[in-house]
């Protein structure tokens, strides 16, 4: 059976695409799924760094496409989770080094060897974006509750709709206390504006900076609040109906702060 191939995209850079891809992938792998993460950001590879495998890269996506190595040789197995692998991007090439067709072929091949292929898309809507979505069967749009991120997400959603790719939304870096005081758009505002189905709400958490510094996805930290949230996203991807907790109801604030997601 062929895997689900999900592209994580946002339009705008810096909203947390790579972190989200790494953590959703880690959460899925933790739940027993076989997951391959693909870094499609050729020239600006970072997924390896977020996952702490940067020293183990031998071959990359471009070398696979150019036939210089076997696909399996380029995959780096995660040391913490044996069913999680990463296909790194090339760092010294640019986005034009591969074509949409080649990318689609590589992702299809990966799809034969796992349950989930998660593709980390570069920022923008040009060549790199078209490559990243070429092999995907569905998309997750990552956005933050900021005007620029939402406008870009809307543009990306338009592009994904043109391709007929089904998509869902992750609202990243929400700050419940700011939403409550009216200083930040709420998750409901974002889903209203973008008219997209939600698959995850991830609160802003400083712990992510710390775990990323160490190259350990927060989804694997045992007592982390965000680990529980990424686990919920993984369950929703599996089709389970996991209720969202509203972050905006003032009376429930204390309770929600520990339970967002």
């Amino acid at each position, binding site marked *: 059976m062929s895997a689900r191939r999900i592209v994580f995209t946002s339009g705008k850079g810096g909203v947390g695409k790579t972190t989200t891809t790494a953590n959703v992938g880690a959460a899925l792998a933790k739940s027993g799924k076989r997951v391959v993460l693909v870094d499609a950001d050729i020239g600006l590879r970072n997924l390896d760094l977020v996952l702490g495998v940067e020293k183990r890269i031998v071959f990359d996506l471009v070398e696979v496409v150019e036939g210089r190595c076997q696909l399996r040789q380029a995959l780096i197995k995660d040391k913490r989770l044996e069913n999680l692998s990463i296909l790194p991007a090339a760092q010294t090439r640019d986005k034009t080094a591969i074509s949409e067709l080649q990318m689609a072929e590589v992702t299809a091949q990966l799809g034969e060897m796992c349950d989930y292929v998660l593709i980390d898309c570069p920022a923008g809507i040009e060549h790199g974006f078209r490559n990243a979505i070429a092999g995907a069967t569905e998309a997750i749009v990552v956005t933050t509750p900021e*005007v620029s991120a*939402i*406008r870009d997400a*809307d*543009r990306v959603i*338009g592009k994904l709709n043109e391709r007929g790719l089904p998509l869902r939304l992750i609202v990243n870096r929400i700050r419940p206390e700011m*939403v409550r*005081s*009216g*200083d*930040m*758009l*709420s998750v409901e*505002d974002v889903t*209203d*504006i973008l008219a997209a189905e939600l698959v995850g709400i991830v609160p802003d958490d400083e712990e992510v900076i710390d775990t990323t510094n160490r190259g350990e996805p927060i989804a694997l930290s045992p007592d982390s609040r965000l680990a529980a949230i990424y686990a919920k996203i993984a369950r929703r991807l599996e089709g389970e109906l996991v209720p969202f907790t509203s972050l905006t109801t003032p009376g429930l604030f204390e309770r929600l702060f520990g339970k967002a997601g």
Partner: protein
Amino acid sequence: MFEFFNRLFGTKPSSATAKERLRLVLLSDHLSLAPDVVEALKNDLIEVISRYCEVDAANCDVTFERQDKAVAMLANIPILGMQRPKPPAPPPAAPPQAPPGLADEPAASPALATTTPSVPEQAPAPTAKVPGKPGGSNGRRRRRKNNGVQGAPRPQPT
């Protein structure tokens, strides 16, 4: 504390401003990104107005303008005259009240007409209508029983 004063003096929260700004900017983004949609809208507008008057189709212009709290559609459609080039086609969805085609209906037999209320679900699809004069009526409908679905007469061979 700031929050308190903001509320006290009725300052709009910035999230509401953000939502309003996004709504407007996305509306104009969508319009400018879909020139084919705007073109289709323009053609449809011209078509509808042409049913009532003669328009200068070559010099029509439809634009969108950002205003304070909305995006306005500005249609500039020069009208050449009121004479209709041909009889207007009935609109696809018939209005609920009194389509003109029913004028010849009172001839319908009351006995037959009473069958109508029991079968409202069997109303003919709106696409069953034909432009122009209806054929005869076999009296299966009465005007006051129409719920809008059957607003126009069905084609009936005479």
